[in-house]
């Protein structure tokens, strides 16, 4: 144990007492942080799950429509209809602080403001199914963004919770018991040396008295 390396003096004892106090306070704070993170995490993880289900459903539908469209149109036609997008998406990323974890917030902007203008082709040579597929696609896109946001948040929070929990446990089960043991060891040592000093003093006093008064025991 660490007690072998400490010198049992009053100064070291005070040092360790201070450390123990800090460790206890840190432990309490980290525990609060962990609980707070956990609460946030629970909230966001249910949202994440719902969004995930929604996006998966939406995408499956959109892909089904696209499948129908590709069955009707020739692959070359389909390819050429979609190859040059009319709009482009720009994303601005902002960070929000959730219990000292930076999580991203996404805001997107399309270069094209009109939501009906997503079709990058003329209507003459394409089938209505393709329009439908694209409409579904753009409908699910917003949820996909939100999904990215929450899923990233969940990942980051999970990481932070794990880290915090490790710290809490390290303090609770390693650091604090170690400090307590060192303090106990030093207190005992000090008491012991105090006792021996007392005994020595008594002995010396006895010898001095004997010398002075010449009396026999």
């Amino acid at each position, binding site marked *: 144990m660490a007690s072998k390396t400490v010198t049992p003096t009053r100064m070291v004892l005070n040092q360790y007492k201070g450390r123990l106090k800090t460790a206890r306070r840190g432990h309490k704070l980290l525990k609060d942080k962990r609980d707070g993170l956990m609460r946030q995490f629970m909230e966001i*993880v249910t949202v994440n799950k719902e969004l995930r289900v929604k996006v998966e459903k939406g995408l499956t539908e959109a*892909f089904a429509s696209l499948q129908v469209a590709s069955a009707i149109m020739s692959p070359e036609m389909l390819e050429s209809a979609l190859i040059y997008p009319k709009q482009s998406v*720009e*994303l601005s990323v902002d960070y929000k602080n959730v219990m000292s974890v930076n999580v991203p917030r996404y805001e997107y902007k399309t270069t*094209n403001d009109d939501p009906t203008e*997503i079709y990058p082709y003329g209507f003459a040579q394409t089938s209505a199914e393709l329009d439908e597929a*694209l409409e579904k696609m753009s409908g699910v*896109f917003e949820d996909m963004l939100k999904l*990215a*946001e929450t899923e990233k948040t969940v990942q980051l929070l999970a990481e932070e919770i794990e880290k915090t929990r490790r710290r809490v446990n390290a303090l609770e089960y390693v650091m604090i018991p170690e400090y307590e043991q060192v303090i106990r060891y030093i207190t005992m040592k000090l008491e012991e040396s105090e006792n021996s000093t007392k005994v020595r003093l008594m002995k010396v006093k006895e010898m001095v008295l004997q010398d002075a008064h010449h009396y026999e025991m």
Partner: protein
Amino acid sequence: MRKIAVIGGRETVMGFRALGLDTFDAADAKEAGSCLKSLTKDEEYAIIYIEEKLAAGISSEISKFKDSPATAIITIPGREGSDGSSMEALRAAVERAVGRNILGD
């Protein structure tokens, strides 16, 4: 301004291209891996959507970005529908944080 990328099979990414996202088609996991590497090099892309069945092959690559707030790598189902691996990943994250699965099912 950051951008959004989609990595997936040729048919999967086609629709996303029309939406105005940057799409990259990859036939297999290896291609997807090198694609991902080049996309994440200079943090130009904030979100990278990647098809589930491709992501399964390069999960170690993807988990490198798990703790980076700058790049989000999100798996999406491909044309064949979801294989449940994204849900599995979510469950793993919950287990990592809470210590047990609280999502039910």
